């Protein structure tokens, strides 16, 4: 049966893999931005491992068929091939599940991409626990820790579709290879495009200043963290919020500013609390001798449960209500 026939025979409410992109503006931003860069004459090419519908690269493939390579389910080959492509001045964007890209291809990334300083941009999508009930094999709560330990590799977790687009644009002139960690493309909007006009990798964004404490969030946790601090502000509890979209190089200045602003620091990440955002912030605070109390909130060195993503976010207190609760545990006199 052809796709057209198949579409005719199903009700409008049903959906297939081919409709996924309509539900994922974050992933649409990926292909749209790559198409724009290609139109501008940037030497971009894109690769994926049999996931062009899952990450939306199908839209890039349609517009730039000669610059798209589907490498099938052979991720290690894909990363090394991207490195080979990059030796000639091309800028390959490699998109695959975050559970596979930095874990299965760890050594190819280290040796062929990061060590060789080739301009490859790795995009680990569906990071964290966004693949909920697909199971632990599809969860990625280690990717930040793994990639952050590789010298010469920039690590960033853009917050929403607008920032993903800004970050990909910024990457076109960035000297190092990059690991981008993104979700499933359904992350709620945080920024208007013009708010990100001055976007810089490595430069954190202060979304709110507060004297009772500061939350440092990254990627998917920025929006719920913002909702949480805004809710608390209604009660007169003045908590700041930093969007730490780049994990490496980390914006130490912003962290130390937060340490000086009063109250504790709370890091919030959809990742193991070991080695990711919380680890990076702890290192900055300890190196500077800052005595600020730090609470690392995230997945507490365990394998995450199976369940629908929204249920998992509630379970791990990574939704707005959960983050608000954790903030209140850290700020004496507040209640949630």
């Amino acid at each position, binding site marked *: 049966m052809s796709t057209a026939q198949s579409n005719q025979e199903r009700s409008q409410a049903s959906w297939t893999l081919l409709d996924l992109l309509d539900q994922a503006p974050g992933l649409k931003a990926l292909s749209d931005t790559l198409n724009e860069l290609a139109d501008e004459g940037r030497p971009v*090419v894109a690769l994926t491992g049999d996931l062009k519908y899952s990450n939306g690269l199908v839209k890039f493939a349609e517009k730039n068929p*000669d*610059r798209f*390579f589907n*490498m*099938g389910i*052979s991720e*290690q*080959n*894909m*990363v*090394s*091939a*991207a*490195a*080979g*492509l*990059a*030796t*000639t*001045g*091309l800028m*390959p964007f490699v998109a695959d599940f975050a559970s596979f890209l930095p874990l299965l291809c760890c*050594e*190819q990334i280290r*040796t*062929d991409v990061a*060590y*060789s*300083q080739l301009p490859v941009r790795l995009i680990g999508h569906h990071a964290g626990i966004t693949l909920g009930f697909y199971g632990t094999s599809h969860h990625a709560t280690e990717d930040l820790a793994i990639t952050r330990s590789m010298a010469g590799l920039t690590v960033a977790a853009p917050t929403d579709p607008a920032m993903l687009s800004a970050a990909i644009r910024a990457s076109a002139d960035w000297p190092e290879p990059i690991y981008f960690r993104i979700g499933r493309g359904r992350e709620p909007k945080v920024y208007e495009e013009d708010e990100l006009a001055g976007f810089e990798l490595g430069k954190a964004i202060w979304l709110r200043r507060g004297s009772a404490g500061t939350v440092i969030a990254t990627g998917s946790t920025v929006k719920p963290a913002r909702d949480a601090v805004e809710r608390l502000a209604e009660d007169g509890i003045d908590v700041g919020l930093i969007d730490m979209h780049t994990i490496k190089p980390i914006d130490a200045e912003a962290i130390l500013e937060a340490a000086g602003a009063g109250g504790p620091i709370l890091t919030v990440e959809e990742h193991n609390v070991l080695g990711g955002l919380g680890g990076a912030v702890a290192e900055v605070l300890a190196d500077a001798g800052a005595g600020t109390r730090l609470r690392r909130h995230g997945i507490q060195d365990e394998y995450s449960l199976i369940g629908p993503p929204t249920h998992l976010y509630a379970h791990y207190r990574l939704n707005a209500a959960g983050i608000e609760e954790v903030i209140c545990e850290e700020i004496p006199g507040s209640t949630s």
Partner: protein
Amino acid sequence: MSAPVTEALDDTTAELLEEKAKFIRREVIRLISIAKVGHYASAFSCAEIIAALYYDVMNLREGEPDWPDRDRFMFGKGHAAVAQYPVLAEWGFIPEDVLNEYTRLGNPLGDHPDMTRVPGVDFSSGSIGHALSAGLGMALAGRVNGREYNSFVMLGDGEQNEGQVWEAAMSCAHHKAGRVIAIIDRNRYCLDGEVDEVMGIEPLADKWRAFGWDVHEVDGHDIRALTPLLRQLARREDPEVPAVVIAHTVKGKGVPFMEQEIGWHLGWLNEEDERRALEYIEQGGAA
């Protein structure tokens, strides 16, 4: 399957390449005497292949290691890089004084080839199994950039154990990367013993054929057979089928007391044995 090789190599070229293979073996001995440990035997098994590629088949420009249209060479079995460095020096890619400080503190030349440090090394190696994928990437880039060059990838026979090699094999055929020419140095030995005892790889030619490659077999020490074959593969018009040459070789070739001796995968020759080895090399390996 491409046409059989009909071209014969003229005597002058054959003698030159045979002399270059000897030069490579002598240099391997000299350089390893600086490091005081090295992979003599793995380098000796591919000396004729390196000589044929670098002194006849590959399209290169003296002193221009980054020439965009050059043929690429990837060393999957990167531990034999000591056979490549003297050749890169002859091409004017690395200075002689750098070569003479092989492996000394801060020198760019290590046991494995490093593209970030060594002009003329087209891709770093050291972790077995990545090179064919990198060669594929370069071939695809040639297509995107509108450049015609070959990606030669030398693989070890032990390297055939790596899963990524077969991912790349499948991928090269699928993407019609006919500019990828793999050469397997079938010297029959890996570290722990004979490849076919440690992790068997036969029927090797059938495997590559089944993956959609144009498969050739040749005596990897016979310059007169090897060179015309590589020339023919390199000069195919718009090739769509990647080619692989299974080069049957002898590990340690040229120094009889090293040949097919497991221990000589890694080692060091004292002065007296070094002299004996060099004599054997001058005699063309006759015991």
